């Protein structure tokens, strides 16, 4: 079927079967491979993207369901030259090891700021991260990164 998706502010006309998942269109058709497929069973959060600002698992959503919405992927958040404050915080706090889960973790951090504002406690972040799995870090530095990244977003907006 023919669908029009708005990804990182740009409209894309895509021809794909109705059964195509959003993450498949992003990675296979548009080459936006920053969004990862970890478990493919809605558990790990590596495929998190923002739909109208809200974090969702792109492996559990049909691409066709994203029509009419603003989709933001990790590529739309910052660039290698100008990282988003949440990305920069992961770098500074060493919030990653292998990096596979990182795009989803960053998006989970964005969701926390959307819901709770820029002042986050480690306890809240730990709780809100229940939909994201990391197999390397033990989460300690991820939590630090999200707390710091949220605070940096406040500074950026000030």
């Amino acid at each position: 079927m023919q669908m029009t998706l708005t990804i990182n502010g740009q409209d894309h006309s895509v021809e794909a079967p109705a059964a195509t998942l959003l993450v498949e269109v992003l990675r296979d058709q548009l080459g936006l491979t920053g969004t990862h497929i970890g478990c493919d069973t809605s558990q790990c959060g590596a495929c998190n993207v923002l739909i109208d600002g809200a974090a969702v698992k792109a492996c559990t959503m049909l691409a066709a369901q994203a029509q009419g919405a603003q989709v933001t992927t990790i590529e739309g958040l910052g660039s290698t030259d100008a990282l988003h404050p949440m990305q920069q915080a992961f770098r500074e706090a060493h919030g990653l090891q292998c990096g596979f889960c990182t795009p989803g973790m960053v998006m989970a951090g964005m969701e926390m700021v959307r819901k709770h504002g820029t002042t986050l406690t480690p306890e809240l972040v730990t709780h809100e991260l229940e939909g994201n799995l990391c197999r390397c870090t033990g989460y300690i530095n991820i939590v630090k990164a999200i707390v710091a990244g949220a605070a940096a977003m406040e500074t950026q907006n000030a």
Partner: protein
Amino acid sequence: MRDFALHRPGSLSAATAAFAGTDGEAAYLAGGHTLIPAMKSRLRMPDALVDLTGLGLSGISRDGDRLWIGATTLHADVATGATAIPGLACLAAGIGDAQVRNRGTLGGSIANNDPAADYPAAALALAAVIETDRGSFGADDFFQGMFTTALAESEIITRVGFAIPQQSSYAKFRHPASRYAMVGVYVARHAAQGSNTWRVAVTGAGTGVFRWTDAEAALNAGSDTAGLVLAADDLNSDIHASAEYRAHLCGVMMKQALATLA
């Protein structure tokens, strides 16, 4: 996932027409957080999906002693918007994880009636009225055991009206991976109707949500519930927990819920 025809109707009548007009199996799609995983694993292979999210069935409103929540209202929106029933808001805030709550819907959960889902316990304990495109059901008649409801083949839930209780609370022991309830207990104290004020609903423990009538009777009589034990005979036993373990958890979860009434 096997391909299918996707319909995105803008009205209830167009939705039921698309469902009825499918040559083969049709299924309704709301948040898709049960259906899409089931289709990916080919447990479900519908020929057509009918998307219900364009029907305007989202929203929360209070009408007298009931809180009405539209069928496609997201768990995340119930968590923040169902302020008239704190126990229900708290239940919604504990479904799945943050990303799941941004997609999953009340109507989808209730129509699916997973034996370990959270919302059916709230619907039963809060004496919900489940309205559809062709009538309505009381919660006591609606849930009919594992993945079974009173809904007809193409019937669509439009909204659910929860009786606003004096106090209520939900406590669950979650499976750490799936986040479904190993056992969840919703207790609600309603405005007195004779001597019956309490309703206690249990999910996760049996083949479907059920009312724990002995607990209700004890609470109505004002007697101590500490010694109450649910018979394990009809409860689930699997690799996660034995029936006896679940029976014990029912008592523990009820105690937790009673301690956090709001």
